[in-house]
Every structure is written in C-alpha cells, then in structure tokens.
C-alpha cells in the first residue's frame, strides 16, 4: 500500500482535500462529446449503517453521434474508480471525454459510465456489506438498470464492459465473478487487494484503536485497512464502526481473516472458474514500478493455472502515471474488439 500511496499522490500532484481524498481539475471536453452528471438511486445501498449516500453521483460520457443519430444504440463501458477519490475526480484525472473522443475518431463509439462509490472510510471496496452497502449489486443491477432505461444502450450482456483502476480493478474482479451474466468482458488496471489481507497483532491493534472521529485523518494506508474491514467483516452490533475487528482478546481472529479471504480475488478464482470462463474476454495490466505488480502477477498466474484465457501486460510505469493513456489506448480498444458495435 505504501507504494500505492506515494505513486498515487506524486503522479496526481493533487492537493488532499477534506478527508484526504484525491482531486483533479476538470478535463477538456472535445467537441461532439456530451457529459452528463447524474444521480442514480442505489436501492442496494439503502439502510447501510455508515450512512453512506444512497443517491450516487455518476458521470456519463456520450459519444459524438449520440446526439444526432437518435436510433442508434451503444455499448457501455462501466469504469470503476480507486480508493480515496470519487467518481468525478477519477473521471477528471482519466480524461475520459478525450478517451471517448479518440476512440470515436477511430470508429469505436462507447458510452462510458463512471459511478462514485466514495464512502465514510474512503471507498466501498465494491463489496457487499450491511455496514457500507451492497456496492456489488449497486453496480451490477441498480446502475446498469438505470443506464439501460435512461440511455440508448445495447441493453444486454454483449453490450457491456466492466473496467476499473486499483480498488476499481479489484471491484472489476469481484463484481465480474459475482455477476458474470451482466458483463461481456472485463479489464482490471493495477488491481489492488488481490491476495488475502493479513494483519499482525500490532497492526490489527492499531486499526481497532483508530478513534471514529479521526478516521478522515488516519492516513491512506490506515483508511484503506478500515475500508476493507468494514466492507468484508461487518457487524451490525458493533458501533460506531459496525465492524468485526481482526483482533480479539489480544489475538488475531481467524474467522475475520477468513471473511477477508473470502473477498480476495485470488482465493475466489478456484470456485469461480465457470464464471470467469464465461466472459468473452478478460484483460489485466499493471506498471512494473507499481508496488502491486507482484500481487497482480499472482492472479495472472492463477488464471493461467485454470486455463482461463486473458490478456496480461506488465508495462513500464507506476501505479498511476500511464493509466489514463492506457484507458484510451488499450482498455477502450479492447472493449471495441469484444463488445457489440453500435447499431
């Protein structure tokens, strides 16, 4: 995580805002591209114990012919952001409008949808938790249904791609494995949290002692740990965090660690081989200077072991310095190859 923090902050040259979340200035919007900032109601998020917003901010980027060719329907790429950033700032940082314009100029038009899943702890982990909300279902059902009923999409599996960066790359793996019937193809950029998270007595103790009022200032690594804990081992009877801490009576609680493992893409692959093989295509990439390169290589090897076809690339770069460029030049062209064409 340390490499990830340093990488993210350095590359973004961002000023930490409130709660140390990452911000980026608004991107250029090329001519012909339409951007809509909407709110989508997340029925799957209702009643979450953290009090996370149920009306979620979503950025929708429409391709050039969308406004003029009123009978045409388009494939949709859902793009998931990382930790300690919201959907809009991720959209800003990734220059999504330019990526859509560039691909449109090459004959590949998409709608790109960037939902915001920022939570009290700094990120949903795209998991299903009574504490944070059921973000897996929010993405795969609530959001997809909303987009399909409000935009001219190719409203079936063949017309939907799922991608994400860092925590969003993690989300791509776990949502893909949980709801394979929704998406045709998936691509994980620099996915975090691939192998099961572990703790020492010292680190678990430190985590369990963070004052609730001070979460925002606990630092990136600690916030990421807290976000993982509340997403993967919720406990509705343990306010204010509503979590099962990984430590009990001075010892690591193996059941909590097991629950975390149950949310690890690496541990999930063996029991989701059918789901993974059902995708039209899978892609994953990571920079060679990214602290996550080892972890991401593990899931690549696990896919190989199970004979699950996928594209895999380790490129020259850090956790963040090439990701916007690669979204435009690698990820969207990958979806152009595999999703149904506009029609």
């Amino acid at each position, binding site marked *: 995580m340390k490499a990830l923090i340093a990488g993210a902050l350095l590359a973004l040259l961002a000023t930490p805002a409130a709660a140390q979340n990452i911000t980026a200035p608004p991107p250029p919007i090329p001519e012909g591209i339409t951007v809509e900032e909407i709110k989508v109601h997340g029925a*799957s998020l209702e009643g979450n114990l953290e009090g996370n917003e149920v009306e979620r901010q979503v950025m929708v980027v429409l391709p050039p012919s969308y406004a003029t060719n009123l009978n045409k329907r388009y494939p949709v790429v859902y793009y998931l952001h990382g930790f300690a950033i919201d959907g809009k700032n991720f959209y800003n940082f990734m220059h999504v409008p330019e990526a859509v314009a560039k691909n449109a100029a090459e004959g590949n038009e998409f709608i790109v949808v960037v939902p915001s899943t920022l939570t009290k702890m700094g990120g949903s982990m795209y*998991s*299903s*938790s*009574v504490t944070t909300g*059921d973000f*897996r*279902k929010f993405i795969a059902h609530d959001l997809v249904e909303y987009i399909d009923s409000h935009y001219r999409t190719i409203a079936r599996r063949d017309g939907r791609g799922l991608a994400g960066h860092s925590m969003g790359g993690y989300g791509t793996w776990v949502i893909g494995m949980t709801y394979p019937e929704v998406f045709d193809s998936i691509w994980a950029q620099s996915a975090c949290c691939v*192998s*099961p998270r572990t703790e020492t007595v010292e680190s678990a103790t430190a985590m369990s002692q963070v004052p609730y009022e001070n979460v925002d200032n606990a630092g990136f690594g600690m916030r990421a740990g807290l976000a993982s804990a509340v997403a*993967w*081992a*919720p*406990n*509705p*009877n343990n306010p204010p965090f509503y979590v099962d801490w990984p430590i009990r009576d001075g010892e690591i609680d193996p*059941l909590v660690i*097991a*629950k975390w*493992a*149950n*949310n*690890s893409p*690496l*541990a*999930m692959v*063996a*029991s*989701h*081989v*059918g*789901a993974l093989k059902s995708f039209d295509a899978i892609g994953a990439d990571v920079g060679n200077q990214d602290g996550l390169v080892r972890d991401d290589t593990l899931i690549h090897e696990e896919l190989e*072991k*199970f*004979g699950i076809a996928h594209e895999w690339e380790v490129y020259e770069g850090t956790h963040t310095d090439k990701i916007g460029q690669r979204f435009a030049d690698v990820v969207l062209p990958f979806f152009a190859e595999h999703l149904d064409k506009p029609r």
Partner: protein
Amino acid sequence: MFKALIATAAALAAIAAVPVSAQERARLNWVEVHSPAIEGNLEGNSAQRKVLVVTPPGYDENTGKRYPVVYFLHGYWATPEMYQEMARFEEAVDGAAAQGNEVILVMPDGHSKLKGGFYSSSPTVGDYETFVAEDLVKWVDANFRTIADPASRGLAGHSMGGYGTIRVAMKHPGVFSSIYMMSACCLDPMQLTAEQAKAIEAMSEAEVAAAQFGQLAPVSTLATWSPDPSDDGFLKVYTGLREDGTLDPLVNQRLAANSPLVMLPQYLPALNGLEAFSIDIGDKDFLLEGNRAFMAELDRFRVKYDFELYDGDHGNRIAERIRTKVLPFFGEHLDK
C-alpha cells in the same frame, strides 16, 4: 459421519419397493439430464446426470394442471438411489397430496468419483452448483408441467445437501423462493493441516478408491474447493504443501471462501429475499455445533429463519421429517 444414515438406508433397502399405479399414486420417474456445467471436469464425472422426478397422484390425467416443485439434494457418500431407499419419496409425495399439497419432487445425482460434489463449482469435480440452479431447473421446467416461477420452486437438502441448499440459495438468488436445510454439513470453515496435506499427497489411486468415510471426506472437499488442473497427480488438487513442509495459506483461504459461515455477510440480500427459510437438526447430531455457529451469525445479521432442534441423530429421522416437516413447509410457502 454417515454410519447411522448408511445403516438406516441399508435397513430400508431390504423392504422391496412396490411399483405404483400412475393414476392413483405418486410415480417415480428415473430420468437422465444433460448438464453442460458438469462437462469437462477432470475426475470424469458424467455430464449425463441421473435424476429422480416424483410426480404427484393425478399428474398423468390432469394434463392441464401445473405443479410447484421441491428440489431435494442428497448427502455425501450417497446416491439418489440410496436416498430413495431411505426416504421413499413416492410415499412422501402421496402423503403431501392427500393433504392438498400436490408437488413434483426432484432429486438430482450429486455423487462424484470421490463420493460427493458438494453442490459447488470446481473444474476438477464439475460445476454442480450451476447444474442444480440452471441446467436442472431449466430441464425440469421444459419436461414436466411445473409452475415455472421462483415463487413455486423450493430447495431442500440433507447434510452435504443442506450445505448445497444454503450455497445455491446464496449464489443463485431468485431461482428458489423457499429453502429448508436439514442437518447441514460444512457450514464453518475447514482447516487443512500440513500433516493432512502430506497424508493426502501420499495416497495412491487404489487407496483413495478404498478409503473410508473419514479418510475420503477431506480429499473430496479439497478436490471441490482447492482444485488444480495443473496438478501432476491424479487428484488434480492443490494441497498447498511446500518443499519445506509448511502449508501455503492459500489452501485454507480457498476453503474459507466456500464456507457459508464465512460467505454469509456477502450474500445477505439473497437470504433476505427468501419467502421462507427453515433449518433443523437432531440434538445428537455431530454437526450441531456448526449449525449453532451458523445460526448465531444469521441472528447477528437479522436474517429471518425458523429452527427446530429435535430428538435424533444425523440420519435416523430424515425420512419421517421429509413427510412431517419439509413437504408441509413447502406446501405452506410455495405458490400453488
């Protein structure tokens, strides 16, 4: 684990099954269903699955009538034939019909080379989970006069089948509206030790074939939950045993990722969406503790279910309770 059950089944096997008339009594239909989900597994388990379909009395003549369906999953070491001998499902379906609860009962073959597929998804064993939730349901709806709607579809099972019941309900929401777990196994996470891994790696094919229940069960669950197509051995499992004699934690992490107790927090919406959920177990069942731990979790997450602790062991009252509890439960909750 199943000694009591086997004994019961053997005793019942002595009683010859009486063929029944199609019109007045429930009828046993032994059929074969092709399951694409089982294809290509490395143990060579057949994708042509034996299935028992019990149609209620009057099914043949009332050609305009459609029926709710109860799917029943059998236990480890057993076959559908053994459970039919033990439970005599035609009598149970007749009894239910006499009380105005006409249902079709379906029991698929969950057996495998290592005596049980745990209704899970494994490239080594096969994707039994998808076989039950998708292939089988689709086939039954296409070949029998079912009410092809989740509101009229129930899922129950005993022991390994009780595990299958909760697993399928979690992972395939919206297929079955009510579920009934009888004496479910495997709810809390299993822990493999380096010694067990060593013992499994040392087993020859002949030893596996001749293994007794207690010796084979951990091999079966490993094949199901820690499969490895690249394994040089015949088992196609990853034991996690390293050169230095220690165990790769990934093995126990994979086992944990198949434990309903561990999976529960991620699948609450599926269970909260059920019309009805029932659990039972005998007070002398060795699986009682695992069931208690699981129910404590259900309570913590405020999942609604009914529970009955009865005087009995793991297998001695299953046939009776299918008649007095399971079928009446579905009679009450499935749409007619």
